[in-house]
């Protein structure tokens, strides 16, 4: 547990708990930015052979995930000056406990799978699973539209972790796809957020409740 990889991954896990406890959007965005940085640098320590291409790719991801996207969302918040509360459906205490259970569950599940590569860290599968689960949790347990977008980004972080470290050969098209996904998703959601703000004067998704059964 003293390798750099484990430390990085445990920081990523810790960021999940902090994101569950954050009640304010700026705080949540900062946690996500931190998580983006941490997750992006994992491939550097994964023990794969690093070519110049993948190094450049990793750095680009770092900039996009760690700085560009959080900054973009932060600007949206500033611009539309929306409520800063994340409006939880599940309370913060329950969220933290759920996060802990999630990590335990992910640790348990992570051992069921053999990895094709020797990743020099046992924390990798649990972290990836936790990130995915935590993203889903934020999507479901927060009513604020931006918090939901952040949950989506967290899920993408998990997928990035799976895509870049589980597989032996760095399939560039896979990495490209992941980057494209998060970029496109965030962009279109940012545009949507602006429209929601204009139409409803708020980004609480509780307002988006007219269409239902």
């Amino acid at each position: 547990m003293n390798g750099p990889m484990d430390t990085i991954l445990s920081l990523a896990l810790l960021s999940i708990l902090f994101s569950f406890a954050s009640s304010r959007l700026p705080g949540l965005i900062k946690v996500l930015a931190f998580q983006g940085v941490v997750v992006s640098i994992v491939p550097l320590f994964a023990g794969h052979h690093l070519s110049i291409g993948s190094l450049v790719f990793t750095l680009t991801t770092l900039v996009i995930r760690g700085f560009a996207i959080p900054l973009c969302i932060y600007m949206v918040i500033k611009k539309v000056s929306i409520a800063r509360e994340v409006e939880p459906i599940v309370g913060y205490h329950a969220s933290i406990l759920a996060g802990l259970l999630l990590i335990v569950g992910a640790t348990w599940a992570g051992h069921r799978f053999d990895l094709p590569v020797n990743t020099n860290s046992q924390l990798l599968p649990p972290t990836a699973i936790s990130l995915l689960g935590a993203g889903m949790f934020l999507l479901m347990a927060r009513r604020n539209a931006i918090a939901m977008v952040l949950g989506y980004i967290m899920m993408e972080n998990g997928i990035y972790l799976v895509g870049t470290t589980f597989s032996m050969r760095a399939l560039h098209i896979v990495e490209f796809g992941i980057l494209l996904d998060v970029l496109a998703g965030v962009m279109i959601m940012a545009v949507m957020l602006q429209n929601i703000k204009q139409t409803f004067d708020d980004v609480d998704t509780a307002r988006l409740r007219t269409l239902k059964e």
Partner: protein
Amino acid sequence: MIESILLWTLAIVSAPFFAAVILRVKAFFGGRKGSPLLIHYYTLAKLFKKGSVYSTSTTLIFKLGPLVSLGTAITALLFFPMAGRPPVVSFSGDAIFVFYLLGLGRFFTIAAAMDTASPFEGMGAAREAYFPIICEASMFMVSILFYRLTGELSLSAFFSGNQPAQFWSTAGSPMIFVIIALFIILLTENARVPVDDPATHLELTMIHEVMVLDHSGPDFGLIELGAFSKLFLYSAFIARLICPFDFVHPALDVALFAAAVLLVYIAVGLVESVMARYRMDRVPKFVLTSFALVFFAAVITLEFAK
């Protein structure tokens, strides 16, 4: 054995001194000269010279409260390996015994506060009963973690010799989370900022201070001394973890240990200087953070201890 008893006595005697360090740090940040480092000794001496006043509505419980809280605190210190040297008493499972000793002390403080039938003290008692429940959960999580790492369940096994250093080598970075969690527990259990403000003068917002409003003279002195000892115990936990070195030479060890304890107290003073007290409803989240941290540390550490 004699060395252990000496160290134990020294710990109790020096506890008020360390507590004064916190005041000094706060004074420094407030730009004041601050009270002398021996202030608490003067206060204690003054209190013991006074007589006690008892309300006619109180019973024996009220008088027992201070005695038990001091007694449990200094008994708990008996089990702690000061500076990594062997403790005065130790048996397998004493870690749990110590937690429950402290719980007993808290129970009597609460009972004494309720005994006065003052609404303020009842309010304080309710809070005092609520927040440490979560603390207890994290404390037990810490012991589970340490138990899994050492295979034993006693404070001497956890903190004596070079065991703290071994924690670092087996568990690694999650130990940082354990330390942060322990620090949060320290702040909560000892009613420090940001959970409770010992300097506040508004009963509505107090936790610990409001419970001892009716104690006076020697009784209050006993409570103060008990509080200092308890704070020392928690600081000693952290001190052993942040400074896990073992030089075998007693004098060096003691000096280093004292320096580490001093560091913890300074940290408490720093926190008190830069933070404000939390609103009551935000305290549980703060305390829960400690539980989350240590639980998290336990999960990922046990992953590697397999």
